[in-house]
């Protein structure tokens, strides 16, 4: 589904990604871990198409299509969803209005008619329930005045509605208390299916107690330096990132 | 005496002034003086018809027959005036009595950097004065032009490259009873060369009962990575008025903190212009005004963001009792291409007196899109809820009010970095509020 080959990317001439290789097949859950500054968020930004980052080498294919030639909204229409580390606030734009626009633009891109308002509303209610969110959310301005936990829950809520093929969760767990984390994780688990894939980007192993990954990758200094099963995450948790650094230094 | 007569008197005084200068009239510097005089004669004193003077009339100040020229050193006993200095710490001092430099009361220096008088600099550092004189001040203002025309005496501070002042500099202008009605026009030139720093405190103090009118101009140049703190304490007699114009040019990575405390005087008009000429410079502009019957304070600030990546923070607070009047006009200008500017401005006013009034005009002029600029401005009273809370805890109304007002003042005073000055201002404020909190914060 997602093929990343030898990806190099930089911002303002700083090389951040230095040859990433990653393959995600349908239904898989991949966790990407790594210390701060290793390039985790850059990777998610590049996949989603943030323009500040320049891809200097390599390729990304998504469903056998060259992802790098698409605009951010075209990537979204193709089925890529990024749960932002820092979701932005847009004053005055209600969540309902935002989601309606988002879903109907995606449908328009596929040549479909807009979603009937009644069905959309029902769908929103179902998803609210899934994430134990209050109805009041729908009329609030997008992320404005939301707590950190509310913002993250709102991201997963949108993910549930938009039904992406590939969801990238960028540090969705950071800053969440344990209850919020459990809600977010159970939301993700309920959305897992053989057709959907997830990339979890995280600094902590904690999230992986709730969402079990198929593969764990360690990103360090712009490269994936280790890959393995979920036991790799446990090893990282007990030994810390310094362990990896040391090992690399020895090599 | 009418405003027109005073202007005429100044014209003839200028001729007398020129005659006494002998050879100097041929210099470039004097050409600037003469042009400024012509400019003043063309414009005349500002009136409330000028947008910049809409809310402040100089008429009551200009009706007196001021003496323009000053006579020699008046004997003042240090013990009598000690209280006007920050006497608990050592400072450099530049002291003027009736507009004339008092070497007796001053403590200047030329070791590593210069702290002396403008007249001395004109004689000994002509290269510096030629380079900076009248380069920052806004001569389109009639009051600045008038000062420039007569510019001869004032403070001169030049921090050489990398120099750090070993102690703060105090500039004090005294006027005495014997001098009569006096028009005082000090001209300060302050240059901070690259990487230098200095703290400056300036005040004007009338010791007599006659009307005194000070028209002061300060030009300040803060070069790369230099750091300036400039504090003004205005707690003068109710017969004294001041129009103070300060223009500061800030270069790359420089930092400026200014604070003006307008606590006493008949009329206080402060024009503060800051221009950013180099990136990553930062300025803090603070003001606290606390007025009672018969007092008028007008703060005009202008922050000119000419280059990207500079930050300005402005906080002016005012408390107005009796029939006092407060004016605030804060302009923030962000020029085209001055992207990534952060400019914040806040003006809060409390009206206590039945006849007190406040006119405020916060002004934003923005020509660049990637900026964060905001201003907030309030006029109101003390919070009744808070007052009730304090009183319910047994604090009498007068003290409760004072406590709340003190808290407002402390937001500005608390930002003063010089501890001794901060203590002094706290005491001054407590005294003005007629309370004794018995504590040093």
């Amino acid at each position: 589904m997602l093929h990343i080959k030898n990806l190099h990317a930089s911002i303002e001439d700083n090389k951040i990604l230095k040859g990433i290789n990653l393959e995600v097949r349908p239904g898989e859950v991949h966790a990407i871990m790594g210390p701060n500054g290793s390039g985790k968020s850059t990777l998610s930004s590049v996949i989603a198409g943030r323009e500040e980052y320049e891809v200097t080498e390599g390729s990304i294919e998504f469903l056998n299509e060259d992802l790098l030639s698409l605009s951010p909204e075209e990537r979204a229409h193709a089925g890529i969803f990024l749960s932002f580390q820092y979701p932005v606030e847009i004053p005055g734009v209600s969540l309902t209005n935002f989601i309606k626009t988002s879903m109907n633009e995606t449908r328009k891109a596929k040549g479909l008619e807009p979603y009937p308002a009644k069905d959309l509303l029902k769908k929103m209610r179902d998803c609210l329930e899934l994430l134990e969110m209050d109805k009041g959310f729908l009329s609030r301005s997008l992320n404005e005045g939301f707590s950190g936990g509310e913002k993250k829950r709102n991201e997963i809520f949108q993910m549930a509605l938009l039904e992406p093929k590939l969801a990238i969760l960028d540090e969705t767990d950071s800053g969440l208390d344990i209850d919020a984390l459990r809600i977010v994780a159970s939301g993700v688990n309920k959305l897992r299916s053989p057709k959907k894939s997830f990339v979890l980007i995280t600094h902590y192993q904690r999230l992986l107690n709730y969402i079990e990954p198929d593969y764990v990758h360690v990103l360090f200094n712009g490269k994936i330096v280790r890959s393995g099963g979920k036991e790799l995450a446990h090893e990282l948790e007990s030994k810390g990132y310094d362990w990896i650094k040391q090992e690399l230094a020895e090599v | 005496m009418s405003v027109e007569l005073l202007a005429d008197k100044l014209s003839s005084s200028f001729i007398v002034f020129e005659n006494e200068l002998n050879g100097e009239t041929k210099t470039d510097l004097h050409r600037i003086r003469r042009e400024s005089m012509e400019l003043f004669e063309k414009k005349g004193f500002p009136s409330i018809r000028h947008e910049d003077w809409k809310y402040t009339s100089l008429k009551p100040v200009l009706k007196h027959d001021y003496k323009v020229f000053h006579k020699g050193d008046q004997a003042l006993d240090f013990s009598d005036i000690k209280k006007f200095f920050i006497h608990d710490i050592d400072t450099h001092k530049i002291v003027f009595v009736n507009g004339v430099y008092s070497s007796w009361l001053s403590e200047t220096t030329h070791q590593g950097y210069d702290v002396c008088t403008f007249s001395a600099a004109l004689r000994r550092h002509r290269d510096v004065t030629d380079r900076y004189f009248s380069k920052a001040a806004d001569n389109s203002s009639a009051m600045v032009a008038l000062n420039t025309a007569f510019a001869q005496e004032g403070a001169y501070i030049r921090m050489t490259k990398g120099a750090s002042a070993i102690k703060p500099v105090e500039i004090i202008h005294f006027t005495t009873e014997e001098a009569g009605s006096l028009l005082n026009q000090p001209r300060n030139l302050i240059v901070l060369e690259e990487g230098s720093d200095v703290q400056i405190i300036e005040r004007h103090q009338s010791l007599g009962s006659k009307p005194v009118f000070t028209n002061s101009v300060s030009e300040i140049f803060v070069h790369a990575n230099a750091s300036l703190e400039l504090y003004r304490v205005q707690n003068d007699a109710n017969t004294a008025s001041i129009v103070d114009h300060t223009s500061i040019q800030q270069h790359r990575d420089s930092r400026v903190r200014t604070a003006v405390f307008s606590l006493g005087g008949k009329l206080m008009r402060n024009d503060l212009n800051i221009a950013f000429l180099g990136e990553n410079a930062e300025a803090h502009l603070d003001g606290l005004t606390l007025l009672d019957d018969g007092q008028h304070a007008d703060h005009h600030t202008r922050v000119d963001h000419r280059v990207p990546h500079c930050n300005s923070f402005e906080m002016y607070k005012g408390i107005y009792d009796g029939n006092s009047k407060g004016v605030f006009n804060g302009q923030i200008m962000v020029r085209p291409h001055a992207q990534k500017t952060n400019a914040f401005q806040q003006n809060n006013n409390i009206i206590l007196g039945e006849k007190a009034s406040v006119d405020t005009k916060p002004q934003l002029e923005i020509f660049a899109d990637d900026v964060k600029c905001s201003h907030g401005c309030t006029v109101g009273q003390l919070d009744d809820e808070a007052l009730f809370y304090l009183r319910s805890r047994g604090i009498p109304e007068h003290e409760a009010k004072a406590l709340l007002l003190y808290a407002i003042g402390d937001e500005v005073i608390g930002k003063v970095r010089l501890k001794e000055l901060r203590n002094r201002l706290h005491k001054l404020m407590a005294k003005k509020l007629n309370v004794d909190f018995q504590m040093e914060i």
Partner: protein
Amino acid sequence: MEILDKITKSDYKYGFTTDIESDKAPNGINEDIIRLISSKKNEPEWMLQWRLEAFAIWQEMKEPEWANVTYKKPDFNAISYYSAPKSKKVLDSLDEVDPELLKTFAKLGISLDEQKRLSGVAIDIVVDSVSVKTTFKAKLAELGIIFCSMTEAIHEHPELVQKYLGRVVPRTDNFYAALNSAVFTDGSFCFIPKGVRCPMELSTYFRINESGTGQFERTLVIADEDSYVSYLEGCTAPMRDENQLHAAVVELFAMDGAEIKYSTVQNWYPGDVNGLGGVFNFVTKRGICERNAKISWTQVETGSAVTWKYPSCILKGENSVGEFYSVAVTNNYQQADTGTKMIHLGKNTKSTIISKGICAGKSNGSYRGLVKIGPRADNARNFSQCDSLLMGDGCGSHTFPYIEIANKSAQVEHEAATSKIGEDQLFYCNQRGIPTEEAIALIVNGYCKDVLSQLPMEFAVEAQKLLAVSLEGSVG
């Protein structure tokens, strides 16, 4: 930037002229022209005298220069001060309306039939200064509501016109008000009797059609004690190379306990992308509130080359309330200097100001406002919020709020912020599948929500579309 170029060039969608025969006065202004206007309209002698006095006042006045706008001053002798569509007959039903005119309305997006059916809005339409149609008149008359053209009011209700005309905006008020008083040709008149709640929105559409004409309409709304009215006006003009002058005066009277809601969607021709042509919109709007009365101004200003306009409230009576909600958009070379004055004279008076400026292209937008609390206005309250949104670094945004407080019990709060549409906001929307243009419309409408929500529903929709059209392609 490509998007910018592509869409800023989108046409002014209301720029058509209507081929209607019109009766037009020769260019120039003098006493004879004023007499001609007055006689064309069969006006009584008192009206003519009032105009002539205004003309004398105007001749003594100078054009104001304090506003933050620059333009070539109009040549007042190159303008025709009277232009009327030639259909003289008084019309009773839409069937009798000139079909060309009906087409005009359809293009304006106001099909009268549809409006009538859907919303029950009563409309007075002023084309080139002359009122052509007032709908629903009979139904309103049952309630004692007078809603007619100014010309008709001068004939049918002279006592009301004489009593109120020029009482809030005196002829001496300013240069353009004086000019308007001398040469106004028509406008709307509205009187709501005591205790009556006007059951429908009253609406006027203004259109300048004829080239080389000025439009000088005069609107008078009087809400008697405890009455209520919501009044809407919309403005459009065809594309013309030369600048056209529009100098209107609006006066509102809200008697004890009355409420007037006055909404404007102004979309005069703004000139082309190079700043050629466009309407000069110099308007004086003011209302007076008696005890417990309320006046609420809402405006969405997207058109005109130069705008100079400060809808104001004089809060004379105790407990009266003034509100001002404004969205002002400038793009290309447009200039707008707009805001409000809230003059608090009575006790316990309250005012709210919400102003949202949006500047794009090479335009300049200024907010200029005055909040004045008089010495007798105990416990007066004001809240002001004046924000600007900048798009691109070629435009300028200015804020000039004057706050004059002479009463110790006043509570005044003013806040202002300048921002831009953030890259991160756009990226967030893009990531959720929303294309950049849609995202901008979404964000701008969100930014203006507090103002748009004040408009009656059908106007709010129109205003939203107008905003999107005015700003298309402003962010690259």
